[in-house]
């Protein structure tokens, strides 16, 4: 297969006991793309992310990332290889400050977490401040992350993911809980990262304006099956896609 695909998923299936959540999904993601996976709740979008990032064990099929078969690798190993994710429900360190949250992710990326004797506060300063700046969290740097607003927690999610310097960034509903202004800023940041450093981005989203405003490739999941794929225009005109998801909205 062509090597310009950063992620190749073949015949991917997942069943929880007897409940089939994903069935024979084939998916290719070209390097440098901004793509979205859409579908109604329960379609299997988050499960798809969970399988790619090693959160759940795969029931069948393979996941190939940058020509490496990473199927069923452990979570931290996949993260180190270059796939990071921001979670749908914010998944942060509530007792640490915003700054400390991001700093830890930076330190992990810099492989400095086995340093036992340098005070952590002296390390990774510039990188951390820069990430807080671009995600718009600078004013909350000393705030305990647990008391941030929902929208700011999602920004912190993004900052934690970006700190890992990924090649592929998975965003699970990155703008859920954000105001329309925050949504705009966040997606513009994502777009800029894609353009400036060539970061490949795959996201899920319910907000139609975000989907059609930012994704260049759309894939529609319905009941665990990939039913349509193409450019936003193609998907918009696809009968099957309209039936299962887009429906009356288009």
């Amino acid at each position, binding site marked *: 297969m062509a090597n310009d695909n950063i992620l190749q998923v073949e015949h991917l299936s997942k069943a929880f006991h007897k409940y089939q959540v994903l069935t024979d999904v084939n998916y290719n993601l070209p390097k440098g793309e901004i793509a979205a996976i859409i579908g109604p709740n329960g379609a299997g979008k988050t499960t798809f992310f969970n399988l790619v*990032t090693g959160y759940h064990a795969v029931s069948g099929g393979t996941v190939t990332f940058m020509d490496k078969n990473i199927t069923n690798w*452990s*979570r*931290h*190993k996949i*993260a*180190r290889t270059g796939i*990071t*994710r921001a*979670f749908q429900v914010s*998944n*942060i*360190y*509530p*007792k*640490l*400050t915003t700054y*400390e949250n991001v*700093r*830890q*992710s930076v*330190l*992990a*990326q810099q492989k*400095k*977490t*086995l*340093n*036992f*004797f*340098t*005070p*952590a*506060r002296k*390390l990774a300063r510039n990188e951390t401040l820069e990430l807080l700046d671009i995600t718009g969290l600078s004013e909350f740097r*000393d705030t*305990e992350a647990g008391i941030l607003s929902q929208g700011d927690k999602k920004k912190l999610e993004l900052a*934690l993911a970006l*700190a*890992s310097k990924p090649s592929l960034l998975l965003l699970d509903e990155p703008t859920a809980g954000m105001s329309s202004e925050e949504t705009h800023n966040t997606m513009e940041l994502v777009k800029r990262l894609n353009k400036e450093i060539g970061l490949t981005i795959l996201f899920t989203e319910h907000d139609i304006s975000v989907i059609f405003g930012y994704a260049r490739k759309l894939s529609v999941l319905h009941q665990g099956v990939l039913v349509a794929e193409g450019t936003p225009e193609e998907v918009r005109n696809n009968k099957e896609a309209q039936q299962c998801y887009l429906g009356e909205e288009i």
Partner: protein
Amino acid sequence: MPAALFVLALILPFIVREFWVHVLNEILILGLFALSFNMIFGYMGQLSFGHAAYYGVGAYTTGLLMVKANWPLFVTLPISMVTAGICALILGYFCVRLRGIYFAILTMAFGQLVFYIIFQWYSFTGGDNGLQGINPPAWLFKTNPYYFFTLVVVTIGAIILWFISESPFGYTMRTIRDNTERTEFIGINVQRYMLINFVIAGMFAGLAGAIWGPFNRSVAPDLCSWQHSGGPVFMAILGGPHYFLGPMLGSVIYTLLNAFVTGYTEYWPLVSGTVIIIVVLLLPGGVLGVYKEKFGHLKSKESTTLEHGGS
């Protein structure tokens, strides 16, 4: 603040009676034991209920080497840290696969295993007779010199642990405590890090045990028992597990109380039990936790993180 405490610890032996110098010595040794325990409890968020095993292994290593091989104390101290560390590495390998109550139960089971090995192995450990005649070198033989020796060892141990707690590794422990799952997704091999921390905690428990033997002139299998593992749990909760020196403060209160109460009555467990109930119900976060909450915001910003524990 720690410097003031250190000076106080230097002066006290010249003021109080010899009995209380013994008590102070005990406070320091058990305090180091509790600080090492808190690396697992307060920082990593897991409850080890078998931490006395590593304390006991340290105590027996020094005891056996001094009594049976006549090795000098200064050589046996680092060796005790190594043996306790190896023991923690082997047992911790299994424990770090578990979390929460399962972690607590397995550490306790392994702790009891170590206890029974020492208890039963008469030919080597002296079984329930323990080991007697663990005498420190002549210049440390009297109460005060040994106390100062303990003070130096415990201070060095505490400083090393403090540095570790403030290092990137220490903060990785906090992220594992706050959100284990997320820590994996930023690329940390959580089990390996937990094991390293378990070994560090075991080594410093071993160091505390190693200075106990010559202080007490003997060691007994009780040092490894699950009851003895309860001590640091109590001290950390009492003093404040989210502050670096919390367990040391817990040791001060616990050990002083013990010394007072046992002077009047045999019913020490009745008193300690009552204290536990009071602390759990009225002092969530321990003495330091409540103190910081009540008075902390008078000073600059204080948070519930461990940031200010050692400063």
